[in-house]
């Protein structure tokens, strides 16, 4: 990295907004995924103009640029795979406008997802997309990855809640797309940029829709003695046209780990549970809860509990939300996948996942958004053993391939990033890639923005890249 670039960045942003020492840079080589890549410089812009100038400088020195929010992503989307400048948006975290009358908020990309809700809940509104990292993840990252969450089953993912964006292109040009009230004449550019994983432009301002809180909510816990019964329940809930606000499934083995951890009174001998939430008008909620309960019982639910109050509801959700951590207690590390399958194929998918686990000798937990077929198998492994890490990756590839075989997709909400780009040919043809590449090049012609993401780098399908060992830990401990 040329010293003059550092000098120019320092004078542009002030040295407190530029990191260049190795001891600082190593803290930006990871995110929430198992990937690693170290930037050469880290900068903290405060304004859109800062971002534009940084990007222009990067172009002048011909170094790549990558955007990052809180670094909670699960596919390496915010890692500087080609080195270069990492633009951290965490200090661009102001809510610029709250228009409660029109249910809109205009925010900078570094605003934390949950902080939007906190700022508007007094008016009975909230921001609907709720990734489980919503306490930390930024809206900029949500836009890049088109983030989802448990309650997106009924309310849609990030793209359904974004009406306008301000963007900085790799040449520094500032562009606004969409409009505050949506329905802009012309192409749905917001629809293109949301979920483009930071490979087309850097997002510097976002206008989001706010949603009105439902009048009533009911949370049900259904306990099953057979996984298939739980899967079939999900299928029938879907088929009967009941759209719960959330429909989450946890397998029995995982549930034991959770119960050991939080003592919420979950059964220790079940095969699976469903956590189902219905929302809406009081009358609708009553009717839907009754219908859901009926479906559960038809499919031999051993027990259906309905949370009596917020306290019980919180306890049930606490189990779901702490599930990953609970599993973390069973092994030193875990690898979370994000495949999607048609909802009716749940039973066979779960069977196959368990077989793939057996084949590689892993325990695989299943905690996932059953309602929309978004699986999150969690492979438990010990990173001290490099063979285990390789096998975890291999098992994940087999599971994702199977999802595609069932008519599904590689990722439902985590993004492709640098984690699954080599698997993309499972879904897309050369012609598909050509067109995607042309759209990419129309915005990012030199691949200077977030290089090495989404598109496969190697030819041929499913080639496994040899990753750097994901974890290094103190030798003495």
């Amino acid at each position, binding site marked *: 990295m040329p010293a003059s670039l550092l000098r120019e960045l320092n004078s542009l942003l002030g040295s407190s907004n530029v990191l260049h020492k190795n001891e600082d840079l190593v803290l930006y080589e990871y995110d929430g995924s198992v990937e690693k890549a170290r930037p050469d410089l880290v900068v903290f812009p405060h304004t859109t103009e800062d971002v534009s100038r940084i990007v222009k400088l990067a172009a002048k020195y011909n170094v790549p640029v990558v955007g990052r929010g809180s670094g909670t992503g699960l596919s390496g989307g915010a890692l500087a795979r080609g080195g270069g400048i990492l633009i951290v948006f965490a200090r661009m975290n102001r809510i610029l406008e709250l228009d409660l009358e029109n249910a809109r908020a205009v925010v900078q990309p570094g605003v934390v997802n949950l902080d939007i809700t906190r700022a508007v809940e007094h008016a009975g509104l909230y921001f609907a997309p709720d990734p489980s990292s919503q306490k930390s993840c930024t809206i900029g990252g949500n836009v890049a990855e088109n983030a989802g969450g448990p309650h997106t089953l009924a309310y849609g993912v990030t793209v359904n809640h974004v009406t306008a964006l301000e963007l900085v292109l790799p040449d520094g040009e500032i562009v606004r797309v969409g409009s505050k009230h949506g329905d802009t004449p012309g192409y749905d*550019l917001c629809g293109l940029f949301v979920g483009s994983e930071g490979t087309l432009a850097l997002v510097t301002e976002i206008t989001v829709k706010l949603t009105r809180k439902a009048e009533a909510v009911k949370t049900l816990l259904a306990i099953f003695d057979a996984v298939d019964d739980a899967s079939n329940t999900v299928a029938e809930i879907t088929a009967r046209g009941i759209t719960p606000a959330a429909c989450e499934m946890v397998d029995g083995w995982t549930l034991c780990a959770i119960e050991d951890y939080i003592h919420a009174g979950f059964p220790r001998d079940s095969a699976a549970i469903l956590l189902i939430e219905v929302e809406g008008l009081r009358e609708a909620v009553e009717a839907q809860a009754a219908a859901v309960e009926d479906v559960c019982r038809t499919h031999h639910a051993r027990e259906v509990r309905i949370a009596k109050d917020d306290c019980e509801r919180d306890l049930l959700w606490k189990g779901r939300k702490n599930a990953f951590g609970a599993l973390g207690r069973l092994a030193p590390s875990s690898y979370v996948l994000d495949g999607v399958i048609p*909802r009716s194929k749940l039973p066979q998918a779960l069977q196959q996942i368990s077989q793939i686990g057996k084949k590689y000798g892993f325990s695989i937990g299943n905690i996932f958004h059953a309602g929309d077929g978004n699986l999150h198998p969690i492979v438990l492994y010990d990173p001290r053993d490099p063979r285990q890490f390789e096998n975890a990756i291999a098992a994940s590839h087999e599971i994702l391939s199977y999802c595609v075989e069932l008519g599904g997709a590689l990722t439902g909400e985590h993004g492709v990033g640098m984690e699954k780009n080599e698997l993309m040919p499972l879904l897309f043809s050369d012609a598909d890639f050509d*067109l995607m590449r042309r759209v990419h090049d129309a915005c990012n012609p030199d691949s200077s923005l977030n290089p090495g993401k989404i598109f496969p780098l190697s030819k041929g399908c499913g080639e496994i890249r040899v990753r750097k060992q994901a974890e290094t830990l103190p030798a003495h401990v």
Partner: protein
Amino acid sequence: MTATANLATRLEGILGAHRVVAAEAELREYAIDGMVPGAIVHPASAQEAAEIVRFAITEKLAIVATGSRSKLDLGMPPARYDIALDMTGLHEIAHFDPGDLTLSVDAGMPLRHLANVLSEKGQFLPLAVPCYETSTVAGALASGIDSTLRKQYGTARDFLIGAEFVDGQGAPCKSGGRVVKNVTGYDLHKLLVGSLGTLAVITRLNFRTFTLPQARGGHLACFSNLEGASSYCDAIEKCGLPLANLETLSPEMVALTAAALRETNAEFAGHLDPAKWCVCASFEGSEAVVPRIARDLQKLASETAAADSEILDAASDAHLGSVSREAFDWLRWASPSAALFRIVLPQSKPGDLAALLCVAQESSLRSALLVRAAAIIYFVLLAETEDESALHTLENAAAGVFFLAGAGQGHATLLHAPLKLKSRVNVWGPKRADLGMMQRVKHSFDPQSIFAPGRFVGGI
């Protein structure tokens, strides 16, 4: 004529004579604002469509993909129009998985037929668009025209989950998939919504479907003035009642609607008082929810001093709904020269609506106004002649409409107007800041600009 004949012959050479039509009378059926194509091709598969596209690329010909041709007057007429690619031959359901509530359907499938198939499994696609009885699924999607159910189900972008299409290089491509949640790759299919066929030839579309509601209901409230109607709508929004549609009709629009209704149901038309502002609500849900919403609306109407209000049964609501759904269609022909605008303004406030009506008044034009789904304003200016003075008046009034929309942080498009007016005003409204980005997108899909050149925003 020879060039056309020659074109037809060469197209016949690719797909066979039975797939190509070049008879004068039929070509006129495919005219867009008076422009007639050189030939009509009826591909029977995505491969055949791709072959025609590749031919067009080599020959530098312009293609307009068509469905039922009910909304070809949207946008500008194409700058060039050599081949009309009639997609109605692709009309199969590729997959319908009722258990998954997902659907994969060919571009030319008529919405009506699709609805019949889906309803057998108790499902539907919430694309309630004008010219419903003839529209094809891809036509409805590419036109970007509003569905009357958008308040409850969103716009097509919200339930389109994937697409297959032929790009401007003649390659069959796809994006998205057949699952309801998916972030694998760029969401290129979303760009197709409302693109007027300028990016690609859509061959297949994947949707999530929805379950037909148990019950439906409607409610009608009349107000002696706009302020009353507005405060009633505000009250509804504030209490967050889930409505499928909420429409506010100006007195003139009430009269036009009543006239349209009279053709099929004279008795119900009598319920509409053309001296009042009417607010029609449609809602659906379980047997318990529908009467609850009706009750709440009745209460809100009386609290906001409605002159009159009544609960509609499902049949009346459906009837009114189907007439209202077709407003775009019948408003186009409501006078010899009609200019129909679609306007989006924040919180359609009474002041903004009044200002629009004022524009018409100042030009001594008859006008009617409809706020759809509590968000989209349909505003029509009606001139009674087709002469130059009528055009001139409309042109001035159109400038006023575009100005008001811009001043209110919103935007307007001219959905329909006499061709002569379209050539004088920019139907897409003032130049937008993101035009450059749209041009980039267009170029990446269709580098040689063979798809409906000139029909779209900024001459795309």
